[in-house]
């Protein structure tokens, strides 16, 4: 499987994701410049964390106008794998590919720590290697990671099993302690925690590895 890691000006977790794919699950991966107009040849697209365009205006708000974004939207609509982490999640909600929005943390400070997540839905392209309710340790690092949506959207997310990860406690003020959601079709995942920082035991956790392995599992099944 061949992944594209889209690099916007100000992305800063691009190499972390690149190494997670190359060294963690040993699959093909390329960095793709934000000015590219085609993602032909790739099977999945990964949008890394960071501060695209300095997070000026609003996190992710400027990135959505980059040329490569049309291709991300095409991937999403064609049912291909799209994963946005941290700033990538913010870009996906900004694009409307995922419901809700990410706003300033409840206590309005940036938080970096390794937190416990609960796997809510283990039947997706991103979580099939985990067990339902499995607790995993994944780092977070964000100032605007508080997931917000209205009651109607929350009811829909629940009804469609779109809530994929939840924090085990109130970390940043997110609605329903949501850490990651998919679209209805479940081929687009956005999450604030950084699985790409949890792929080696020596870094404190390798619980993120299964997320990337899940994608490979899923793709193998689709291809067969």
């Amino acid at each position, binding site marked *: 499987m061949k992944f594209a890691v889209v690099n916007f*000006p*100000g992305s*800063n977790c691009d190499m972390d994701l690149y190494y997670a794919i190359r060294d963690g699950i040993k699959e093909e991966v390329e960095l793709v410049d934000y000015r590219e107009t085609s993602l032909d040849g790739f099977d999945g697209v990964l949008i890394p964390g*960071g*501060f695209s365009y*300095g997070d000026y205006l609003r996190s992710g708000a400027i990135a959505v106008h980059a040329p490569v974004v049309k291709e991300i939207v095409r991937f999403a609509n064609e049912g291909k794998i799209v994963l946005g982490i941290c700033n990538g999640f913010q870009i996906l909600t900004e694009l409307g590919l995922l419901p809700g929005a990410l706003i300033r943390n409840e206590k309005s400070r*940036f938080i*970096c*720590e390794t937190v416990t997540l609960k796997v809510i839905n283990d039947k997706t392209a991103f979580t099939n290697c985990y067990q339902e309710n499995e607790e995993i340790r994944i780092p977070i690092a964000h100032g605007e990671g508080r997931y917000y949506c209205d009651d109607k959207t929350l009811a829909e997310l629940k009804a469609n099993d779109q809530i994929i990860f939840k924090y085990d406690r109130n970390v940043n003020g997110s609605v329903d302690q949501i850490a990651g959601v998919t679209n209805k079709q479940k081929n687009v995942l956005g999450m604030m925690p950084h699985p790409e920082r949890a*792929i080696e035991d020596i870094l404190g956790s390798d619980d993120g590895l299964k997320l990337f392995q899940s994608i490979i599992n899923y793709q193998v099944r689709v291809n067969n």
Partner: protein
Amino acid sequence: MTEPTAKQIKDEKNYQQWGLTDSEYDLISQKILKRLPNYTETGLYSVMWSEHCSYKNSKKVLRKMPNKSSRVIAGPGEDAGILDIGDDQAVVFKAESHNHPSAVEPYQGAATGVGGIIRDIFSMGAQPIALLNSLKFGPLKDGKTKHLVDEVVAGIGGYGNCIGLPTVGGEVSFEDCYENNPLVNAMCVGLLNKTAFKHGTASGDKNLIVYVGAKTGRDGIHGATFASDEFTDTKNKQRSAVQVGNPFIEKLLMDACVEIIEKHPEWVLGIQDMGAAGLVSSTAEMASKAGSGLVLNLDNVPQRETEMNAYEMMLSESQERMVLCIKPEYKDDVLDFFKDYELDAVVIGQVTTDKQYKIYHQGELVTDIPVDSLTEDVPEYDRPEVEPQRMIDDRDYKFVPEIDSLEETWNNLLKQPNIASKKHFYQTYDSQVKANTLVKPGSDAGVIRIRGTKKAIAMTNDSNSKYVYLNPYVGGQIAVMEAARNIVAAGGEPIGVTDCLNYGNPENPEVYWELDKSVEGISSACEKIDTPVISGNVSLYNEYNDVAIYPSPMIGMVGLIDDIDKVTTSAFKEAGDLIYVVGETADDFNGSELQMQQTGSIKGDLRPLDLTEEKLHQDLIRMAIGQKLIQSCHDLSEGGLAVALSESAFDNSLGFDIKTKLTSAQMFSETQSRFLVSIKESDKDEFEKLIKTDFECLGYVTQEHIFKVTTADETVLMDGKKAANNWKEAISCLMK
């Protein structure tokens, strides 16, 4: 604004307000130029001859520092120092102070401190890999100080998080003397492929000078002069001297500079960042170091404000700007390369052979002076020095603590802001970006692995200005050795030092004595453990209403871990492990946190530090770690054994059961040269055979989160959870 004429500057002594003295001005006009310098020229001299740029007051003292070892590739004089770590790789590091700007505009002051030190690293051709910081404030009792702390911490995080470099270590402390003059020191560490090393020089006739990065505005004009002056009630609001940072631009600039040097080394002959004293400092230093001259045309400088004059453009400290020296044949390649990163890049000048520094603005020659006169002809001052009266008065004073309740004293000490957990602050720094952080903030040293190798780099920032205040010489030694113990405890070999020397007004003989003696102390310790001082900076005039801060040298130390299997942390690992203290404990209470807690101030002399014993203990611990005998290792510092035991227990919510020959008071003694270690019981014989020297087996780690302690005086059972809460919550409570 009409510029004053050269004659007006002389007659009205305008140069004085820019920081030049009468004798310095006379030297320039009578000996160097043999004419009166015009407005722009006077401005150039005033910033280049400021203490911040010229070290005119501290040079004599700085020469005492060792800067050689078998690893040194570059030392003081470059943007940052470089140490060989084998396999054609090197580490590059430097620390810098941003004290004055942070006092006036804390968020931007701190942020641009981080931005500036990062540029010093990538201007050497290195990829920055980690950040650290050392912060000192007044006590957390009023809203003003809390605001200052909040904003400084936010500024550091705001810049480092956005640019995407992990902040892996640091320290925060609180003393009265920093209330109106906080210290903000930032350090950056980078990794260099030895072949990529670029000097900050401008050589070769007709080679081009290229300006890259953010546009020039009026911010930060006279920042270097401002940094070389003291604060008073009436003189503390020089906002125009403070710069504004843009980490997004710096990220582009960093990536572009690292890439151009890595992929196209032949395009770039020299590179330097525009830091203090901006365009003049960077270009004049590049030319002077190469023995060249320069012609600059300011009309080409990208500007974000209108009608800036030459003086303003040359002295602006706008951030995120670099200067490159390139060969003319690569001009288009270089400019196109930066354009691809959407960065401004323009040719602003040319190298010449006449050693003159010439500046044109709007067709007019506004500066024509010998380039070396800016960098080399600064008078060097040999200031009078005298031992501070307090040292003579308090020489024989010995603080003898009285402990009514071991448990109460212990718990109270854990709540002291200087001892309590700093997680409230470091949690706001991204410590894991780049996915190389093996040891995050909260242990003795931060550790970053070098991807693709077995190696890792340990790094720490350390200072205990209370000790330096009581005895500058011994305090200087302690600062170095405590940093070294942090590196050793993390599994590393100390290999080099950078420093920020923060002091009061050097024209005060007592302050100068403190500077001189503490540098001698630092030097002797660095020589003992072969850690050359390869970079650093000096920040003098840290005073408010004529009261100086404590002499506050900050030591940034880097260590090499040759195998990541050796990486060790301070946290106890398993119940049943044996606990040892290595090193003899004596009654060292002068300058201790206990003295501060019980008397509200510090007083008395320090015992001399036995450097040979200190080194022996460090070597033994390193050997024990090398032989995989150590489960956890923690340096003993503020709060002594009691605090070290607690901190080691907190991380994994473990407890301990110990019995010691020490008195209850000695549990808080701050004797140097000690480590707290835990080992597997099965390694007992081998460990004791190796250590041989002074050690005491205290007891063992327990599963219950309970501290059971028997001293020579009493036995206490402490609730570990309560102790942990005291330690963890103290800062958050105070910051509310």
